[in-house]
Every structure is written in structure tokens, then in C-alpha cells.
């Protein structure tokens, strides 16, 4: 390749290596030479584009995994097994601080699900958050039930041995005894024994906030209605889980508020809303303060809930029907707002969501979540194809549309999210045995579906609190 006579100066300027004299010489040459200016502009543009890729962060827990591998003396061999081992070595590496993880279904072995680590970047994930809320709580409920029952058995002078089989053969509360079956069987399984010996699980069980949360009727009701395993084993949901880095989103208070807003939960199960949420025009508009202010007006909400009014306003101008309102008129004049409502997906959502989309747009928490840094994360999350796929998934929609879940999320007043962000809790549900049990152990699954566990939790609540 032939070098241009001024290449050294141009590249030196790009790289910041020119002396003042050289810089002055280049400035003079640029001023006199249009072709050189054009060449410089091209180089600068390329430089900008390359720099625009930005820094890359290794996945969360990378250092721990490396040190674990160093200790083992084994480089990564790109096997899922190796990644699992690294994860275990990482110990308390928090679930939501990881950049990515894959929940890979093992179709052949019958283990159902197993955890593996992955490395892609990404933003927060609504699907993941909700899913883990349910999964974690379901697991924790079982454990808490067992823990307190086991403690009581010992106190009552039952066997008091540590062996899994003997531990729970003592007298049980009558309500539990009457319904004992799968849950009881699980309590005596090796899987449970392994779980109980895990220090992270023990820490979880000692967490008072978690116990309080689990004891709320809303949470218990939610757990009793959700077919957790079916959702977890769904391909689209798994994929969404696997690729979404929850990171800051999970622990962000503003996002948490948006997530458990009634309007958000109601809208999530609607396919047309999900499609609209993916529209760039929506993200741009919601980040605009004027649009946000306009959306809080009741008149505008009425307008947005009426697809015909929206169309009329766009075709004939705002002075028609419902649009003949000053707030609506002002809003429609905003170019970002107009771009939003002229988006085809927006119209579909207005027509198909029975007002849920309009309610979501005017939800203060939802609007706040779109602002600033976390807004970018939130928008990215909603726009992720994987999250969209999960949203469109029937199982997930059913989960999101479950009234009990909505009540539980809203009723926990932030405790749910605080509990989920607890490192011990994260570590506990990250336990390989736990995941295996959650995804594939028939006893465990049966126990999750068995109302015995919930009945026992109610009983414990009555005694403990």
C-alpha cells in the first residue's frame, strides 16, 4: 500500500503524538489542501467509528473464575461442565452481577436444567427478573418450610439427627401431616440433603427479611398459582434468561418501582404492547421530558386509549373529537410524540391492549424508568429480541398475567427486589444442586406444585411471627 506523504502527520495527530511544531505544520497544510482535508476527515471518521465500539468489560466474576481455574490448573475447555465448575468455584458471585449466563436445558439426561456461564453483554431483563422472583421464592419457600419444620421436630424431642431421612420423620404439624406426600418425599431425598448442607442455603434460611417476605399471603398465593417448571423449561424463556445481564437493572430502585407497577404488570402479558415497547420511537419519546409531562394528563390518556381518536388527530389535525383538547394538541405538536404515535406497532397496541398500553405510558414509575442511564438500560432490555421472544411466549404471558403474581410483586413493597438482590439469596439459588433440583428433580417439582408446602408456610407464619 502506498503511503500518503502526510500520513505520518495525520496518524500522529490521531494518536496524539505530534509535537507542537508538527501540529502547526499539519494545520497549515490542511488549510491549503482540500484533498488533504478530505483525507483527514475520512481518517477521523474511521477513528471515531473504531473508538465508538467502546471498552469491553469481562463478564462478572471473571477474576474469581480465573483464580479458580488457576487453582485447579485447568484452562477453560469450552465445555459447559467446565463453566459449571468455575461457577461453583466462584462461590458467592452474584447472579445479577454477571454479564450473562446460560440456562441450558439438558434434553437427554433428564436433569432438566443446568447452569452454565456465558459472556455476552446486555442490559436488564424483565423476564429474568420475574422468573427469578418466582423461582427463587418457590425454592426458598420449600426450604423455609422444611427448615422450620425440622427445627420444630428437634425441639419436640424427635430424632434430632442430621441424616436427611431421619430428620423429618418426626411428628409434623397436623395440617402438614394430613397432606404429606410429594413434599415430604422430597424432604427426605438426597437432593434436599445436599441443599441443606450448602452454607449459602443456610444463610438464606437465616435471612429474616426473606422469611418475612415468604410469609406474606400474596407471595404464597402467587407461588401456588404458577407452574414454575413449565415456564423455566420453555425455550424462549430460557433463551431470554441466558442472554440477559440483569446487572444494575436488578438493583435499581427506579426500575424496581417500574417493574412492580400495576400498569406494567398488566401490560406485560399483552402481545401488542410488547411489540410497541420494541419501537425505537417509543424509547425516544419517553425519554423526552415534555412527552412525559404530557402523558401524565388524563385527557391524553383518554386520547391514547382511543385508536380512532389517535388516527383522527393525525389525519385531520388535533382539532377533532377527543383530540380537541389543549393537552392533546400540545402533545401532538411534539415531533417525538408524533413519531411515537405514528408507529404502526403503537397503533396496534392502542387498538389491541384494551387501554393497558395507554395506562402503561402514563405510569409515573414507567416513565421515570426511561430517564437517564437506567432508561437506556430499560429501553435496551425491552427492545432485546430475546426479551421480546420471552414476552411472546405463552407460558411467560400466562405467568405475567397471573393476578396473584402481580399482587405479590406489588404487595411486597420493594422487599421482593431487596431480597432478590441479597448475595446469600443469589448464591443459594445459584447452587448447582439447587438448579438441578429446580429443573429436573421430580420430587422437587412435585413439592413446588404441592400445596402442602404453602400450607406449612402459613402455619409457620402463624407460629413464628
Amino acid at each position, binding site marked *: *500500500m502506498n503511503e500518503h506523504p502526510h*500520513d505520518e502527520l495525520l496518524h500522529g495527530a490521531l494518536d496524539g503524538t505530534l509535537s507542537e511544531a508538527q501540529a502547526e505544520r499539519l494545520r497549515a497544510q490542511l488549510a491549503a489542501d482540500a484533498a488533504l482535508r478530505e483525507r483527514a476527515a475520512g481518517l477521523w471518521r474511521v477513528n471515531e467509528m473504531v473508538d*465508538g*465500539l*467502546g*471498552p*469491553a468489560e469481562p463478564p462478572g466474576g471473571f477474576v474469581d473464575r*480465573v483464580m479458580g481455574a488457576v487453582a485447579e490448573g485447568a484452562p477453560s475447555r*469450552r465445555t459447559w461442565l467446565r463453566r459449571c465448575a468455575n461457577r461453583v468455584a466462584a462461590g458467592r458471585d452474584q447472579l445479577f452481577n454477571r454479564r450473562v449466563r446460560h440456562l441450558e436445558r439438558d434434553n437427554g439426561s433428564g436433569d432438566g436444567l443446568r447452569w452454565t456461564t456465558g459472556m455476552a453483554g446486555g442490559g436488564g431483563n424483565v423476564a429474568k427478573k420475574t422468573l427469578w422472583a418466582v423461582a427463587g421464592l418457590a425454592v426458598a419457600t420449600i426450604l423455609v418450610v422444611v427448615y422450620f419444620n425440622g427445627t420444630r421436630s428437634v425441639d419436640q424431642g424427635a430424632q434430632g439427627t442430621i441424616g436427611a431421612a431421619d430428620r423429618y420423620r418426626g411428628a409434623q404439624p397436623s395440617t402438614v401431616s394430613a397432606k404429606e406426600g410429594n413434599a415430604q418425599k422430597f424432604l427426605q431425598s438426597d437432593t434436599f440433603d445436599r441443599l441443606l448442607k450448602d452454607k449459602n442455603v443456610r444463610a438464606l434460611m437465616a435471612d429474616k427479611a426473606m422469611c418475612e417476605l415468604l410469609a406474606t399471603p400474596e407471595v404464597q398465593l402467587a407461588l401456588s398459582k404458577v407452574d414454575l417448571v413449565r415456564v423455566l423449561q420453555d425455550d424462549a424463556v430460557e433463551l431470554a434468561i441466558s442472554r440477559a445481564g440483569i446487572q444494575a437493572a436488578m438493583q435499581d430502585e427506579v426500575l424496581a418501582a417500574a417493574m412492580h407497577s400495576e400498569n406494567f404488570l398488566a401490560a406485560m402479558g399483552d402481545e401488542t404492547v410488547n411489540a410497541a415497547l420494541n419501537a425505537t420511537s417509543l424509547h425516544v419519546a419517553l425519554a423526552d421530558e415534555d412527552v412525559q409531562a404530557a402523558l401524565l394528563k388524563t385527557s391524553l390518556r383518554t386520547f391514547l386509549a382511543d385508536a380512532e381518536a389517535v388516527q383522527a388527530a393525525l389525519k385531520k389535525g388535533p382539532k377533532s373529537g377527543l383530540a380537541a383538547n389543549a393537552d392533546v394538541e400540545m402533545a401532538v405538536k411534539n415531533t417525538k410524540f408524533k413519531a411515537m404515535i405514528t408507529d404502526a406497532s403503537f397503533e396496534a397496541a392502542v387498538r389491541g391492549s384494551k387501554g393497558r398500553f395507554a395506562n402503561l405510558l402514563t405510569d409515573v414509575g414507567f416513565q421515570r424508568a426511561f430517564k437517564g442511564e437506567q432508561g437506556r438500560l430499560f429501553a*435496551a432490555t425491552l427492545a432485546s429480541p430475546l426479551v421480546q421472544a420471552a414476552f411472546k411466549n405463552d407460558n411467560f404471558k400466562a405467568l405475567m398475567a397471573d393476578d396473584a403474581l402481580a399482587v405479590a410483586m406489588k404487595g411486597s413493597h420493594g422487599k421482593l427486589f431487596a431480597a432478590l438482590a441479597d448475595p446469600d439469596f443469589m448464591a443459594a439459588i445459584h447452587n448447582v444442586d439447587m438448579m438441578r433440583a429446580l429443573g429436573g428433580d421430580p420430587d422437587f417439582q412435585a413439592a413446588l406444585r404441592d400445596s402442602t408446602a404453602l400450607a406449612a408456610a402459613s402455619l409457620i407464619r402463624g407460629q413464628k411471627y
Partner: protein
Amino acid sequence: MSFTVDADDDVVLVERCLRGDMDAFRPLVERYQRVLFGVALRMLGDEDEATDAAQNAFVRGYQKLKTYDHDHKFFSWLYRILVNECLNVRRVRRVRVPLGVSLAAPDDTHRTAEQAEIRAAVQSALLRLPAPNREVVVLRHFAGLSYHEIAETVGVAEKTVKSRLYEARQQLGDLLQCWRAER
């Protein structure tokens, strides 16, 4: 992206490792994880593979610490190991993973779809550069090394570094011509 290299400190930590103090390796991993991962990512274009390559580089580096020559910078030595790991990864690569927006910086997603496409195009263009040229671009732009440091790291003359960098930028310009015209 740039990072500060404290050669003396590196040597001290390496010495401690060689005396059996494995924990002394942790600060080295913490110090170089970002730059190694970043370089691997831009060299390979796949986050999983980049993570594997970076992790393997550290592990193999630890295993080969006795061969480290203190006259050279630790990063340069580690980088050579990383390059070999990247080559290994590419050798066993089964299917080229399509480049997606996930390769872009974490904050890109709020921007327009077009900008995300540009980033994907830039990453793709990087992967189409001849390996020696890609190497200098990555070290300059994503490791923040000076010409001199790149020369030492890659093991070529500084003049060669400059020549490769100029050529690489020209090639990138050609590969990204349609995007350059967008502005």
C-alpha cells in the same frame, strides 16, 4: 481504553507467585482482565470465545511464570500468550457466530438502531483485516498502547507498527465506506 502498567509491581507479584503465593496472581488478573478481554473480543468478535481466550491466557500464564523474562513487560509477555489462545480458539471454532449488537459497548443500546449497525459493521470490518494489522489497531485503540509499547508487545519495529496502523486504518476506511458516507 488504556491502562497503567506498573512493571516493577508486576515483577514483585510474579516473584511472589513463583515463591508459591498464588494469591499474588489475583492483582495481576484484576489489572489486566479488561485489556486482555477487550483485545480478545475485538480480535475474535465473540464474547464467549474472548472470555475463554482471556481466561486461558491467564491460566497458562500462571503455569508458565517461570519462563517470564523480567526484562520485558509482563503485559507484553501475557499478550503473546493471549494471541496464541486466540489462534487456538479460531482453530477450533465450529461456526462463525454472526456479529450482533451485543458486541457493542454496554451503553450503545439507547442509541439508534443505525448506530448499533455501525458498531456491528466496525467489528465486522476489524475481523476482516489481516491479522497483523488488526493486532496493532486493537492494541492502539482498545489497549491504549503507544507505538513503542505495541512494537515491544508484538515484537516488531516501531516503524512497522506505524505502517501497519496506517494501512489498517486505510483498509477500515475502505471497508466502512458506506457508513462513512452517512455523515
